[in-house]
């Protein structure tokens, strides 16, 4: 099963919010990778595993293409 490797990606510029989401998702046993900006997320080497993305809707920086 690949479930154990599944990653939840969190992108939020607010440090408190980012940390709390990481804590909450981590507390149910999921792996979490958190990023402060869309840029940081795009630059990161994403592992080839099942995942989902939790994205802040009001992020500064990168606009939609």
């Amino acid at each position, binding site marked *: 099963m690949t479930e154990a490797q599944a990653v939840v990606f969190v992108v939020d510029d*607010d440090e408190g919010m980012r940390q*709390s989401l990481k*804590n*909450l998702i981590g507390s149910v046993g999921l792996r979490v990778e958190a990023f402060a900006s869309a840029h940081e997320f795009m630059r990161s080497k994403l592992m080839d595993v099942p995942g989902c993305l939790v994205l802040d809707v009001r992020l500064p920086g990168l606009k939609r293409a």
Partner: protein
Amino acid sequence: MTASIAHEVNQPLGAVVNNASACLRWLAGQAPNLDEARKSARLIITDGHRASEIIGRIRAFVKKAPPRKDHLDINETILEVIALARSEAQQSRVSLQTQLSKEVPLVLGDRIQLQQVILNLIINAIEAMSGVGDGPRELQVGSAKDDSQGVLVAVRDSGPGLDPESLDQLFTAFYTTKPQGMGMGLAISRSIIEAHGGRLWANANQHRGATFQFTLPADAERVP
């Protein structure tokens, strides 16, 4: 401005809820993870402090004391705000006109605070008109000498107007008709005008739209 304040306050509150939920989960089960639970509780404290700091900043903004007292030409004060609001008006396809009387006396007041009030009224008007489909989008900012030799500033729009029953509530803190609003703008504006010895009120226009106007007493030392 109010939308961003609401967002700022919501962030730490959301973080409190997340961290508290996580804390309960770390404590649940056969082998509670006390380290993580403790860490969560500490994060809640940090978030709580952050929320109260933000509220403290809003309070300091509302009760910014003591206001500066400058001798002001209200027309200049208005024109500086219009320069700021012009692009916002253009983006919303609102035609922005001024009708400034040369007869107005100088007033004594805090330029920045009064500009915040005028800007708030202008932005409210633009937002109100952006909500209407067709019809003219006209915004007129005027100044005049009022009955008691002071200054009268009026911001008149051609938006959907005001519900007569809500006229009293408009200036109450946390009352808002905007989906993203926090209901602070007019409440703060009224407290600023009253601190300057003036009055701020609203009327529905006869045909369409609303007019918000305020008075300020003339600068007693400079009355000709």
